[in-house]
């Protein structure tokens, strides 16, 4: 899913393949001289999720809704901050500790907008985008439970 508005190209992809952060940043910034700040967030599979040892994580998503939900939040981010580009890539499938899961890239003239928009998007990806993690450990497999801290993180962005 790609779109463009107000000089802010948007790319949203859900894929099994890994991503290349340098390539994604190059796509966002090439031939442009109005971008002063690029923030990237990459989320990786860890071996230790809340004290249990993880052998692998499997990511499931709701095709169609996942892309649309991310798009809604990217649009919301673009309405809040003066952004010059946004890329969101969420991988699905089975991952080993150390592997990439998610990438959020934001570009802006100034760093504060890029930082805040990236954090906003990650907080909403965690709590609102239809993805679910199942973890495999020595004691079996189970679905990861949602964290109250993620709801609290997303609630920071609610406009009163």
């Amino acid at each position, binding site marked *: 899913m790609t779109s463009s508005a107000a000089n802010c190209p948007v790319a949203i992809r859900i894929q099994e393949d890994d991503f290349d952060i340098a390539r994604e940043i190059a796509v966002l910034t090439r031939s442009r001289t109005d971008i002063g700040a690029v923030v990237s967030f990459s989320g990786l599979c860890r071996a230790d999720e809340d004290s249990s040892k993880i052998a692998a994580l499997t990511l499931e998503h709701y095709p169609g*809704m996942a892309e649309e939900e991310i798009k809604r939040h990217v649009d919301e981010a673009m309405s809040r901050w003066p952004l010059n580009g946004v890329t969101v890539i*969420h991988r699905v499938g089975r991952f080993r500790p150390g592997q990439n899961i998610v990438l959020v890239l934001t570009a802006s003239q100034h760093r504060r907008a890029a930082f805040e928009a990236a954090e906003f998007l*990650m907080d909403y990806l965690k*709590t*609102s*985008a*239809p993805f*679910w993690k199942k973890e495999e450990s020595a004691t079996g497999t189970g*679905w990861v439970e949602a964290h109250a801290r993620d709801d609290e993180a997303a609630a920071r962005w609610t406009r009163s």
Partner: protein
Amino acid sequence: MKVKYFAWVRERIGKAEEMIEPPATVRTVEELIAWLSGQNEAYAYAFEKPKIIRTAIDHAHVKADATIAGAREIAFFPPMTGG
């Protein structure tokens, strides 16, 4: 209408999607969950704690009191854990 299930809701019900025809008295998301729960043990298990089930109608998050009239696709799933 089409119904989809994800994560452990899907696993408990034992299918990813199905077509259903609830009676006309079922008007809201919570009424649909109650009606599905009455189908058999698998649905009852999936919806045993209806308050933690999240629902989307036509790809948008909705609350339990949302009307299901006109919905093409309703999805039930646990709280999201992506990112």
